[in-house]
């Protein structure tokens, strides 16, 4: 009973820590993680679901994470994995569904201000990125949007740094080829 009580207090304190960590991490990382997932999924609503899933999972694992740095790495990893899973699911659904509108047509219309900012160059680059194989796309987004190191990308994707280098190199080459072809 004593053990139980002691453990019970630990559980309560742990729950409180997890709640506080959740709010703090949400405040500092939610937006950037949604943006990261959106770049991978090209679907903001799905990206928000994915990131919320990741936060719920992180909260459940807080007693083992405890440190914000570990939690951020965990969140990033969970977001990449879940985005990949969601994309896989969407592709299966796409195959079964009648012809869908292109992703761009489904997207919300940009505001006038945003429309002015959206240059043709950017659109071409984004289309080229979306056409890359999944792993290459993930590496490039993590490198050039999230500004992660090779080691951090490797951790987030669950692959070796050598594989990161390989995907990055191939991705850049493919991107260059596609953009030159488009021009």
């Amino acid at each position, binding site marked *: 009973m004593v053990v139980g009580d002691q*453990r019970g207090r630990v559980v309560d304190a742990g729950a409180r820590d997890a709640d506080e960590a959740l709010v703090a991490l949400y405040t500092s990382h939610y937006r950037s993680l949604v943006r990261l997932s959106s770049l991978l999924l090209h679907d903001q609503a799905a990206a928000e679901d994915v990131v919320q899933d990741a936060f*719920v999972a992180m909260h459940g694992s807080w007693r083992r*994470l405890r440190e914000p740095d570990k939690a951020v790495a965990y969140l990033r990893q*969970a977001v990449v994995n879940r985005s990949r899973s969601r994309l896989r699911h969407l592709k299966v659904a796409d195959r079964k569904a009648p012809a869908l509108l292109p992703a761009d047509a489904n997207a919300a219309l940009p505001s006038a201000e945003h429309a002015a900012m959206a240059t043709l160059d950017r659109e071409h680059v984004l289309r080229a*990125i979306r056409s890359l194989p999944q792993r290459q796309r993930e590496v490039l987004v993590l490198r050039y949007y999230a500004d992660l190191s090779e080691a951090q990308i490797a951790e987030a994707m669950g692959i070796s740094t050598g594989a990161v280098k390989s995907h990055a190199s191939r991705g850049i080459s493919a*991107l260059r080829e596609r*953009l030159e072809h488009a021009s």
Partner: protein
Amino acid sequence: MTFPGDGDGSLEELLRNALHGEADLISPAGDGLARIQQRVATRRQRQWWTRPILALGSVTLVAAAGVGAYIATSHPAGNDTIRTGKQPPIFPTASQTSTAPSPSPSRTVVPAPAFPAAAFYPFTSAAAESSWEAQGGPTAQPWIVDPVAAAKQFVSQYVLAEHVTTVMGTHISGKSAAVTLGRTISDAGSQHPVKVTTVRLQHFGKAWLVVGADDPNGDLSISSPSSGARISSPVTVSGPSYGVDEQVQVDVRAIGEPFLTATHGTAAFGNGSAPWSTNVAFAPPADPRGAVVVIEYSAADGGPGRIAVNGVTFPSETTGYPAYFYAEKNGRVAKMSSRNGAGLTYMTPSTQHATDPQLAGSNVYYIHADAACGNSIWTVSASGGKTHPVRHDVVAWASKPGYAISGYTVRDDRNAVLYQTACAPGTTPAALVTYEHFANDTAPAEDITDWPSTPPAIVGDLAFEPDGQHVDAVVRTGTHSAVRRYVAGGMGNGSVAACTGFDLNSGEPDAMQVDNNGYQWFAARTGSSIEVVRCIGATQRVMFSISGNHQPADIAVAGSGSGVLVTDTEGHAWRWNQGGDVVALTPSVPITQLTW
């Protein structure tokens, strides 16, 4: 396509710009935290029910249930490929789960309900409501725990339709309520009651929160922005039209800030016009949530005839605090990042010495030293532009000869209280207070109150209460400081102690401000820390502390208390927001005076 193809450096830069440009367009909905917390609460509840079964069941059952819980709660997608090794640790195993004690009733974890997604009044977050509860708010403000009183307060104080007070219908069902309010209309010599609006409320914690309001007859409604939508300025507000020859007035509001829209949006319809629509520009409020208020005035007597309100969120919803603040930096007013305190741009020219900035509405006010002794209040738009002195006809907000403004408060560009101290010792009066206002709401006027000798003296800036009639200030006598409350037009003719629940022996207040709910906040020096205290009526509560023997220099409270900035006399600055931690900012130079 202009890709140069002259090396990966250019391509990488193009790639980086494209991804960041695309990401900047993505603005997550504001209810993310509430949705996560709701799911965490659900998960906790499920675990609570699972534990006793696990403790009593067989090993096989335990293992199966544990694995099931693992899959169900930790990996909703089911195919998450998070690995062990370098990765974050895996989730509790079945055996670990089985050893967890059965929770006793005293340790039952009650799942926290989610803050209503569309709620915006009188609280804009779960943290704000819970801190209000913890401070005895239900006793000090009983109208918040009564749905009818909350609806009436909302219509009079937020919508500013003060004569719409007759309760014409009430429907309360569980955690939801709808209160229909109306007024007596005078039409061609006769008087009859009319229903004007139905206020919708939801119960959260101990409070009834307003989530919107509708026209009881269904003739006026807002189709865009929808309830809970995130908006930025300018926003297009539109709705269907039902009427013959009608006109609506459109505003964007937040708690205590009815002047976000410098000019009302108006739209006519019903006389050959299509459904009404109008664009409204507004100053970004400090609170993360607010509302679009649409009022149709009666042709019979000019009073409000129909009222519709949709709650909305602003960009600060994600962080809980405004993106920018304004501070004195190198003798100039500068716009700075609330995230880390980095300077973004100067608002005033290098040729002008500016101190003590204060944001009111869409303008930043500041003190400009005109001479060796003497200064005046100047202003600049929060979005930048030309600076100019504040002057109404011949009345300028300036110090009197032989005096200098050492503290002030400004409500908008019509009202201010300036505390002025004599430049030369031995001058009588030693200080004076000027109240700049509009007599009969038309002519600019100035009331002057002498303070024959000091102490007592006002420390730092004063602060208007939301009613515009009262002003609070930290007043230092010979031995201690205290927060006092004055009538704006009669400062010096007596005051009452404010926040009587604060023990003056526990700390010395040095800087104070009033939030948009009318709660007083002050930063007190204890000798080992700065304690930031909020007062609701006479009840005080320490909201957060900053360790170290710092002397507070300034405090800035955002909106209804969603965020707070504090500085000390050495130029350190800290940020805090409801439900968050204290964060030390890192400006490139020390800052002591700031506002947001």
